[in-house]
């Protein structure tokens, strides 16, 4: 391709023909204009006179210019000019391998990248090169296909919300080795990742590599932290450039349930800094509504952070059975609970009747034995709606008769009286340790410190259901924690006290972890893989590469440890995962991630994405030349006086006048005198355009009219075909509408008219004409057409007429529905079954020619 003045030419030697233009000028100007014909009696005197020279009058200069420009446009157009030709690049022939990073880093400039890719495919198609596309985030076997075959598949190349994993890199390397590509175009997303160099080496072994990489900054948002009552948001960028402000949006649902931006904060990158942070102070009510944070103006999975319930502060009501003795704080039943829950939960205190209206998430009863009836009423409802009632044992429960003979509704198990004490001064044996948690237990995976032991507990009564309800037990098999569910809520009993009197559990970190597992507290901020060991998390909502959310459907669960430790990948896309009552957001970015710009060796040509695509100009030029030549024809005709001969002008004017006259004439024919229609009852059918159906409708309605005339006091006039577009429907009591698959869909105005007709008491009788074979529904072409036609109508969904419908008894003239077939008819009712008859929209079999009389054949 030769480039002249910024325009590339595919066949530059054709431009040499431009040199012939001056010759053309000379030739064209010698052509005489068309002669003028004149009547002149003096011609007798002219006979025999000769012209001096044969040079004619000259063609007007502008006509000459027009022709020259047209010819020049044709010449230049045939030389295949291309605007914005690709300046660089190697001209290699052979299979072309296109490598896409396809990570979330390229999501923001994805459309631009696809545009560039499309241009490259077009170029490859022009060169006749076979193309294979390799996505590093989803490496598949390479298949070289004609470039044109890839173009429609570009829409499917959406970025993935993960970076290439080592295994994916390996697969890609294997595929590249077998590819045998002549050259490679690499669309990099601009982020560095492990294994990129290896792939580059492998590609360079095959042929020259050219890289497309946008200079656009890539932002990533780290998971927010809740520090000192404020949400701290950290933003990363891949290049340490100029100072810059980034707006962060907190998205969630407003109280009405609509998606809304709940808050926004501005993070300022200092010059040369790659991180910036912003803090956001929000009321807890608003904070709990936040579902995700995102960077404004960036649209990728990395710049979106999903929120789990780590920001959501649970409301926990603490109620102790006995009054706190002043001064003995460490012995207070609620002290350790308060210590454990305070960082992550909002604590309520008060009586049960006070806290219930606040609808807390959890109510903890520490050594509360009996509940009053008034308290019980509210508590049952609260638990049934999903509340968690957490009870701790204690001397009072041990001493009371609660849940002794039969199970108390607010106790998970029956208790033996008195409880037991082991390892004390007055008893034999050692204090018991806690047995490892069973797999079915919510505590499964928690490590048990050695120094935790239990010296006293209340004992559960052996019971058939006991085994199912135990979620933690002591080393001797006695239950430590039992649980039962009550509708949506659950009731959990720790068989020990909440303070350190009966055991050292409240003193250990295990106590806090157990509370977390029970979703009493929710602190995902400092969660580690070990914390989630042994749990299975099921994705609820997953995020695509653009940061868009979608329902996870039935994806397989993920192990809790992997969820924290592993990078996101095809098996574990970022999203919100849940396990039992807890939810955990897995984001693309982890707290300690950084962004690094991909840097390429100097030998690799790197092109930005913002280059204007090459624009072939040949079509424009040739089309313009054609227009110029058309103009030349018109101008030449005008010059020679033959553009519009007198007779032509007269004919054209005549045709126009005839048209103008014809239009009102046809309209006036369509409009009938409405007084005639209003004076008599006229049955009407919709004109379908199918002559046979229309004739059938007309004949059927005429038969029906005749029958009505003979048998009733109704004397209908001749039925009328109705054009929905032009005719006024208000005069027809019933509109028979046969369905043909080919009939045109009425215009919006016609539908407005039909709806007005229905609202003012009109009755439309649709007829699919195939009820005997197709039954009810859209199983036939006519049925589907009916659904299509009736969709814009203001009628409820159609249903078959039930046997006891008033229509079945209302037709006094006939004992049943008569027609060609005796199928149950379908009825769409607006309102209840007893709505007035003129509000029904029924579908019925047509009164066919032979069956015009309703009771014929009976």
């Amino acid at each position, binding site marked *: 391709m030769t480039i002249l003045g910024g325009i590339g030419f595919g066949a530059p030697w054709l431009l040499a023909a431009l040199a012939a233009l001056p010759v053309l000028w000379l030739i064209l100007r010698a052509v*005489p*204009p*068309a*002669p*003028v*014909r*004149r*009547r*002149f*009696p*003096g*011609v*007798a*005197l*002219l*006979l025999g*006179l000769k*012209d*001096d*020279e*044969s*040079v*004619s*009058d000259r063609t007007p200069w502008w006509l000459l210019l027009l022709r020259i420009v047209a010819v020049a446009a044709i010449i230049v157009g045939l030389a295949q000019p291309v605007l914005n030709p690709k300046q660089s690049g190697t001209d290699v022939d052979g299979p072309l391998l296109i490598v896409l990073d396809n990570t979330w880093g390229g999501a923001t400039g994805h459309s631009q990248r696809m545009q560039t890719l499309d241009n490259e495919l077009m170029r490859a198609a022009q060169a006749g090169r076979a193309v294979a596309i390799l996505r590093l985030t989803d490496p598949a076997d390479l298949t070289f296909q004609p470039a044109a075959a890839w173009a429609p598949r570009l829409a499917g190349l959406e970025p993935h919300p993960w970076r290439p994993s080592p295994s994916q890199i390996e697969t890609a390397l294997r595929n590249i080795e077998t590819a045998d590509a002549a050259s490679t175009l690499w669309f990099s997303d601009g982020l560095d990742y492990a294994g990129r160099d290896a792939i580059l080496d492998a590609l360079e072994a095959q042929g020259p590599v050219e890289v497309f990489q946008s200079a656009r900054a890539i932002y990533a948002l780290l998971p927010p932290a809740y520090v000192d009552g404020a949400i701290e948001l950290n933003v990363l960028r891949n290049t340490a450039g100029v100072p810059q402000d980034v707006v962060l949006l907190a998205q969630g649902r407003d109280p009405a349930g609509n998606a809304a931006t709940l808050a926004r904060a501005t993070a300022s990158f200092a010059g040369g800094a790659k991180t910036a942070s912003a803090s956001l102070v929000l009321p807890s009510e608003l904070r709990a509504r936040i579902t995700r944070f995102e960077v404004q103006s960036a649209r990728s999975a990395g710049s979106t952070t999903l929120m789990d319930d780590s920001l959501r502060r649970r409301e926990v009501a603490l109620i102790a059975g006995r009054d706190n003795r002043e001064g003995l704080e460490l012995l207070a039943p609620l002290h350790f609970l308060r210590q454990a829950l305070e960082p992550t939960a909002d604590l309520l205190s008060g009586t049960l009747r006070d806290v219930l209206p606040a609808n807390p998430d959890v109510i903890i009863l520490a050594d509360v034995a009996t509940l009053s009836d008034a308290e019980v009423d509210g508590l049952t409802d609260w638990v049934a709606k999903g509340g968690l009632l957490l009870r701790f044992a204690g001397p009072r429960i041990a001493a009371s008769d609660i849940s002794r003979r039969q199970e108390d509704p607010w106790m998970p198990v029956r208790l033996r009286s008195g409880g037991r004490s082991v390892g004390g001064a007055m008893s034999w044996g050692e204090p018991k340790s806690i047995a490892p948690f069973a797999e079915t237990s919510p505590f499964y995976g928690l490590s048990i410190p050695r120094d935790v032991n239990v010296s006293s507990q209340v004992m559960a009564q052996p019971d058939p259901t006991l085994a199912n309800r135990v979620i933690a037990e002591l080393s001797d098999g006695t239950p430590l924690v039992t649980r039962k569910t009550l509708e949506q809520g659950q009731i959990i009993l720790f068989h020990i006290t909440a303070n350190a009197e009966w055991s050292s559990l409240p003193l250990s970190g295990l106590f806090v972890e157990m509370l977390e597992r029970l979703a009493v507290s929710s602190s995902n901020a400092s969660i580690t893989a070990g914390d989630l060991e042994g749990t299975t998390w099921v994705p609820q909502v997953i995020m695509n590469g653009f940061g868009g959310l979608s329902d996870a459907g039935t994806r397989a669960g993920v192990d809790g440890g992997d969820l924290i430790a592993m990078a996101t990948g095809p098996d574990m896309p970022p999203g919100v995962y849940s396990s039992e009552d807890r939810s955990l957001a897995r984001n693309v970015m982890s707290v300690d991630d950084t962004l690094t710009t991909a840097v390429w060796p100097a030998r690799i040509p790197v092109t930005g994405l913002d280059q204007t695509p090459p624009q072939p100009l040949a079509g424009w030029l040739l089309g313009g030349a054609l227009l110029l030549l058309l103009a030349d024809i018109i101008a030449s005709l005008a010059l020679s006086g033959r553009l519009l001969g007198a007779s032509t002008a007269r004919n054209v004017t005549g045709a126009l006048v005839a048209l103008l006259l014809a239009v009102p004439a046809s309209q006036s024919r369509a409009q009938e005198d409405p007084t005639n229609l209003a004076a008599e009852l006229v049955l009407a059918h919709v004109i379908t355009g199918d002559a046979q159906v229309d004739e059938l409708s007309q004949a059927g309605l005429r038969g029906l009219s005749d029958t009505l005339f003979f048998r009733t006091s109704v004397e209908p006039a001749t039925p009328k075909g109705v054009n929905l577009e032009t005719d006024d429907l208000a005069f027809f009591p019933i509109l028979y509408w046969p369905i043909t698959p080919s009939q045109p869909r009425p215009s919006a105005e016609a539908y407005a008219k039909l709806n007005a007709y229905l609202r003012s008491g009109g009755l439309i009788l649709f007829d699919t004409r195939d009820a005997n074979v197709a039954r009810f529904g859209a199983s036939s072409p006519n049925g589907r057409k009916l659904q299509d036609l009736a969709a814009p109508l203001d009628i409820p969904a159609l249903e078959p007429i039930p046997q006891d419908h008033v229509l079945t008894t209302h037709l006094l003239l006939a004992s049943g529905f008569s027609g060609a077939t005796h199928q149950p008819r379908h009825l769409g009712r607006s309102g209840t079954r007893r709505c007035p008859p003129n509000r029904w929209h029924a579908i019925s079999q047509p009164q066919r020619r032979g069956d015009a009389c309703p009771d014929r054949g009976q």
Partner: protein
Amino acid sequence: MINPAALRARSETEAASFPPLLARAEHLAGAVLLGEHGRRRAGIGDDFWQYRPSQTGDSLRMIDHRRSAMGDQNFVREREWQIAQSVMLWCDQGASMRFSSIDDLPTKADRARVLSLAMAILLSRAGERVGLTGTRLPPRRGNAQILRLAEYLSEDDAAEYSPPEHRAMIPSAAALFVSDFMGDIAEVQLALTKAANRGVRGVLLQVLDPSEESFPFTGRTIFESMGGGLRHETLKANDLRDRYLERLAERKEQLRHLCALTGWHYGVHHTDKSAQAGLLWLYQSMAGGART
């Protein structure tokens, strides 16, 4: 085809402003047909001229007894010799006359007819006999003749350039030829020579369109005669102008020369001038005054 009644009405209007015209009668002696021209001598006529004594040879019937009874001598009542001049018209009806360069101008034929008929009306009022050359309408007197003239003048001739009609010319009569004389000059020559031989004198009026005098054409042009029979194509019409005008002047000179030889009057009338001017000139020339 012009409505003869309309043609006559217009011609009457044109002629109304002129007094009745007496065509100049030069050949008193050879006059054959009686008319109202007093010859200032005794002869056949209606008006009294003189009483003269009867001479030998006078028939007895010629004696005016009322006068003779007043004396002994016999007198003969003589009347003044009166004759009517015959004027023959020829108005070119050919296709070449049906031309006007601009819509506003009348065609040459139209102007020629108006002038011819106006002359005929004037002559008729003066008591002359007016007719057409040729045998179709011999000279007669009276209003009916004017009607017939109007009718004949309204007819169109299919010929491109119709030659002057020179048959059956009455000797010693007067004639009026109106045409554009674009056709063959030999025909005109023949007609005038023949007329001169018979002692017919008259007026030759050449009616021309202004465009025929100025030739305002440029560019590539195909000139066609009115019937389409003749055609001349030129690439530069403006180049032809001078040579055309030369030929036109030559034609005029030929006509003038011919008229001078035969004792006719020659005049040129342009359709952009008023018909009155043309009629005035005709009036004067027929009366024997102006010569161009």
